[in-house]
């Protein structure tokens, strides 16, 4: 019997998705038993050239984590797309752009300026910046090109499934692997998570009344661990966010920040959250509602924390 062929890759990401796979613990050994892992640069001895030599479609499933931030990442995304029957956007960065996607508030020049020219510990009077090609005394060195903006995986290549989370929880990773191994695949385009919002799985008490008179910052209050954060005037992404994470942040008495992406049916996570928040405010007066919403600082970076590149906004106009 031919063993199933799996591949794992990371692009602009932190490595947390790789750790999440390791957090399968002893089940990792079960995966290695039923499937042949043909490419996993962090763990296995296969090269880009080995992937290039494979027939198109010869990888059964590829879990791809990380956003697309430079030319090398785009190249590998295209390569793995061609070689894989099933490509899974694995984790919030691949699905929506993730935290690195917040860089779409700026462009390459602004990022370079902060990091290499104006950071307080940087001593760089010569104004050196990293270059795609640079000459050293012994020869030439090259770097991949840093793009002006961040993209999710499906903005670069077609994707069959989305497994969100920062990082994806182990039960959903296992569910995805079982689906690939058994061939019992859901319809293409499916998100491997809940069909409901995070609020639907949150155990906190809700009054369902228009009760908010002001919004507070997390540093200002000690939240009641039994009551809905939003009804305490604390921003929580629950109503605009897809469920399936197990509400682990909320269990730690911290509000949701939306890493599972838009709730089902919500086109734009930030817009949906703004609408929900406005409806919770204890007022009928549009002016007063606007004034109370204005108390929320950094609405772009807050409401679109994990999804800016795939939101209706996509990126700041610069």
């Amino acid at each position: 019997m031919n063993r199933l062929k799996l591949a794992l890759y990371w692009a602009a990401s932190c490595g947390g998705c790789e750790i999440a796979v390791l957090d399968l613990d002893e089940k990792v050994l079960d995966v290695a038993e039923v499937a042949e892992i043909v490419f996993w640069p962090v763990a296995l001895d296969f090269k880009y050239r080995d992937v290039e030599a494979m027939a198109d479609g010869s990888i059964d499933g590829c879990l791809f984590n990380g956003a697309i931030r430079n030319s090398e990442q785009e190249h590998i995304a295209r390569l793995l797309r061609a070689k894989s029957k099933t490509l899974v956007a694995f984790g919030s960065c691949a699905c929506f752009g993730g935290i690195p996607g917040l860089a779409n508030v700026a462009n390459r020049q602004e990022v370079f300026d902060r990091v290499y020219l104006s950071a307080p510990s940087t001593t760089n009077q010569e104004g050196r910046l990293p270059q795609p090609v640079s000459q050293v005394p012994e020869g030439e060195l090259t770097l991949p090109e840093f793009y002006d903006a961040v993209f999710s995986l499906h903005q670069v290549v077609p994707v069959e499934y989305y497994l969100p989370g920062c990082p994806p929880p182990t039960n959903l990773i296992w569910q995805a692997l079982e689906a690939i191994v058994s061939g019992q695949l859901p319809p293409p385009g499916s998100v491997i998570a809940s069909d409901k919002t995070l609020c639907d799985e949150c155990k906190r008490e809700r009054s369902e009344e228009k009760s908010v008179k002001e919004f507070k910052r997390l540093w200002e209050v000690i939240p009641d661990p039994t009551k809905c954060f939003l009804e305490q005037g604390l921003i929580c992404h629950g109503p605009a966010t897809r469920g399936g994470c197990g509400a682990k942040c909320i269990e730690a008495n911290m509000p949701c920040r939306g890493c599972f992406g838009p709730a089902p049916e919500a086109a734009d996570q930030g817009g949906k959250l703004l609408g929900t928040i406005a409806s919770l405010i204890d007022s009928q007066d549009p002016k007063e509602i606007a004034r109370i919403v204005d108390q929320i600082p950094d609405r772009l970076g807050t409401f679109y924390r994990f999804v800016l590149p795939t939101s209706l906004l996509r990126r700041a106009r610069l």
Partner: protein
Amino acid sequence: MRRTITIDPITRLEGHGKIDIFLDEKGEVENAYLQVPELRGFERFCEGRPVEELPRITPKICGVCPGAHHMASAKAVDAVFHVKPPSAAKKLRELYYTAHYVHSHSAHFYALAAPDFVVGPQADPKERNILGVISRVGVEVGKEVIKHRAYAQQIQATLAGQATHPVCGLPGGVSKGLTEEERREIEEKAKSCVEFAKFSLKVFDDIVLKNKAYLDLILGEVYRMTSYYMGLVDANNRVNFYDGDIRVIAPEGNQVARFKPADYLDYIGEHVEPWTYLKFPYLKSIGWKGLVDGKDSGVYRVAPLARLNVADGMATPLAQEAYEQMFSTLGGKPVHATLANHWARVIELIYAAERLLELSQDPEITSDLIRTLPTEVPSEGVGVVEAPRGTLFHHYRTDEKGLVRRLNLIVATGNNKAALCLSIKRAAQGLIKGGQVSEGLLNMVEMAFRAYDPCLGCATHSLPGQMPLRVNIYDESGNLIQEVRRD
């Protein structure tokens, strides 16, 4: 004929790393470069964010050591708001953080470092991996490693919501306390971790130290580098991961600086080179003298060996015993043998496990008093911890509403950037002679940086295998003349 050897991809750095080795006409190594083609620009996109959100944003810098960024960030926001967490909150953070160390150090030691020693530096690359290790030491040991790394992850999740990525840190404390039932569970796991750490030291002793060839390798010239060292120490100059002053020692071992984290800009500068995205930190008092080592160069090193070098000892008994044994075996302090990082890492694993147990038995650890609400206007603050891979700096400045104006980060592996380049060059020069290159020799070049555990080391080896490696040798016109593969 001049040639270039390119090792690409190497993958034990965040994102992607690449080594270029330049050979002269005689086939001797002229120079070697470690490039980091990775940049995500947190310094820019954290601007404008509410500063109390940064402990949840900055861990995404690294999913292997999110705990380190979370802690440095939580300490930085304490400083920004001029608020001191209650004693129990500080202990809860440290409890979380010692569990993080158990996860990181045990994964690195067994999965990443062990293949080179248990299986052998020039062994068949098919065998030189975690499966090769398990086949030699037994599957039961492999399961113990998985079990204890899982314990460490579970403890972090209990305290911080998730192990990757934690969410509990807030200005002035933590969001969640510990119940007595959770405390008991952690205590039991901590006891088991102490035994596991002791066992790990024995493994190191049996496999590495009792093998004269390995001891010679550790002490040999190929893996030696003299430099300054930096690390956090407590009031008694003992190693501390969470808090303390930053101490710097010279290559001869004398203290040259001891300063508060908030004063780091007086001591550290960062040099920029166009051929890599990672900057080169150096000691300002000496200055940036290029990629050279020794007393006259501002290059310093961080991570386990550096921490043990700068400290006068360890704060727990078993770790102290192991600390003394290491320095007496290796000929006194400071030790410049880069490979001794592996030994130092196991000693720190013992300290982390012992400290984990101590804190889990602390009567105050289940206190409800876990937050001090800030009352002052936020402004500026620095938070520093020892990440598993070295000293980590977070520096935030905000407006009066607590929105981030500027943010500066010096990450653990970043401190070692120059040292990594120099260690790779030294190893390549010592190992590659007359243009003769083999896969085994190149693995030994890689061992030079593997000792530092550059970021993602701990993720690398819990599945069979090791770094992908392809070395192409080109002539001056760019024609491929030789290829070395690890298959």
